[in-house]
């Protein structure tokens, strides 16, 4: 089958194919089949996945077959996400359709891919060691994640830490970084040359948009990473920079809270995460200035390199 780079494909061609039989897109480590007749989905794919390949012909196994469909409601047009016939979410406003695709894909991974232990965390790597950033919403994780990627850290994921239980290594699944509210303008100013996706207003999370993954992270998407640190980030306006060791026991409990599928893995998953906190540097991290935060991460990576 003929694989084509999305960047080399006219938008109207991609849009037409999406709306008819659909497209297969390589999103390492997955192959996803997507159908949608909604324009903003095509625009989002065209811009955010420009460096990735697509094809139309059947014949290759697709990990997920998804669709984002328009639905007319009395008050305003809506969209719904479907995966293999399942509709896991309530419909959203039509303008959120690309965001819904991204959330839906995250759902597919966490819902089906139980051969990994999946955590709600960003993951980046430098110098052969990965930092895992588990964080609740509002912690500034995505702003930090995007800034680190632009600063030379390889992005494995902004949302999902996929841990192979047999090796303890992290599997990359680099996809557009999800930004919301204030972080959108902050990163527009910091990274004016990095493409951003369609902006969705008034979502459950506020204003949402996505930032493109850089070429280096995509090029190395088949390269797993050894965990080096678990860092719990927290943005606090005006706060001095702080990197404090966190107790292993408390950190393990917090990691478990961020685990999507620990219920599947049982004792094995427990041991994997216990090994993770034992072998890595575990910290609480508070920041208010991005540049200071980046310097702190540089220092951590340098220490690791010197060790």
């Amino acid at each position: 089958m003929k694989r084509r780079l999305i960047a080399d494909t006219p938008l109207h061609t991609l849009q037409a194919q999406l709306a008819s039989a659909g497209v297969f897109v390589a999103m390492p480590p997955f192959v996803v089949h997507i159908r949608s007749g909604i324009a903003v989905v095509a625009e989002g794919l065209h811009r955010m996945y420009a460096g990735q390949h697509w094809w139309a012909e059947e014949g290759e196994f697709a990990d997920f077959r998804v669709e984002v469909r328009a639905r007319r409601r009395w008050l305003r047009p809506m969209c719904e996400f479907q995966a293999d016939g399942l509709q896991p979410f309530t419909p959203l406003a039509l303008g959120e359709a690309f965001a819904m695709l991204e959330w839906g894909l995250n759902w597919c991974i966490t819902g089906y891919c139980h051969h990994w232990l999946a955590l709600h965390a960003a993951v980046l790597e430098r110098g052969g060691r990965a930092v895992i950033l588990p964080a609740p919403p509002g912690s500034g994780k995505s702003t930090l994640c995007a800034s680190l990627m632009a600063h030379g850290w390889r992005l494995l994921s902004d949302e999902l830490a996929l841990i192979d239980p047999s090796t303890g290594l992290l599997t990359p699944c680099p996809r557009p970084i999800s930004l919301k509210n204030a972080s959108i303008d902050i990163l527009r100013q910091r990274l004016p040359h990095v493409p951003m996706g369609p902006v969705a207003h008034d979502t459950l999370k506020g204003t949402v948009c996505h930032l493109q993954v850089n070429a280096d992270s995509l090029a190395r998407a088949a390269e797993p990473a050894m965990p080096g640190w678990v860092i719990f980030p927290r943005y606090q306006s005006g706060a001095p920079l702080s990197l404090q060791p966190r107790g292993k026991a408390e950190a393990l409990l917090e990691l478990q809270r961020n685990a999507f599928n620990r219920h599947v893995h049982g004792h094995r998953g427990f041991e994997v995460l216990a090994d993770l906190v034992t072998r890595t540097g575990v910290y609480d991290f508070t920041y208010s200035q991005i540049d200071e935060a980046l310097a702190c991460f540089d220092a951590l990576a340098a220490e690791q390199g010197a060790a």
Partner: protein
Amino acid sequence: MSESNQQFEGQEPTSGALDKKLSRRALVRAGLKTAPVVAALKTDMVMAGVTNGTVVRPSAFSSFVANGQRCSVKPAGTVTHTGKCLTHTQCKQLVTTTTCSFSTKYHCNTEGTTGCGFVKPTTYLSGCTTNNPKLSWIVGTSTLTYFTPKTDLDKLALYCALGYMSAKYYGDVDCFITAQQCRDLWTNKGVWTVCGVQRDLAWTLAYFNNCFGTGSFDACLSA
């Protein structure tokens, strides 16, 4: 003089060793005087775990190790169980509807494609009478018919079918839940014993929903 002091004097410890022992005792005593549980994370979901025939087993790890730890297991991955469930009893061996009749013949034809540790449902199960709800769920064709479970037992049937197909594909050895467990679950209407604890239908449905459904991801979406 206390017995413990006599013991120390009998052994003639150095003063450093005596200090160390007293210190350890003091530390341990201080620690034991506080309540042992600092925090708890309670969930009510079963674990994949040790094998004693009554607990759920981890999902297909070895299969994916054998396939280079890739999520997209190349088919080979089409699971097909075709058969005519001619009688109620035979149909019960796979999955059935809640109101099947002993005198009714069913045609049970299940298919699925593999991926990610579970067989994903492209299941087609049909009941041949109009009196019974159809479990027909065809994905990947232009005509899509979705099964909407109406009762808890309908949901259980769906989950048992998915679990059964996964078990059969992965050789019923290192699978998420064994074929026999799926049959037992269906026969016992969702009641089973896991890690020595008996679970009921409501718990079982919540467990499968967590595995096959939105589960813990909802919090990520709405936060």
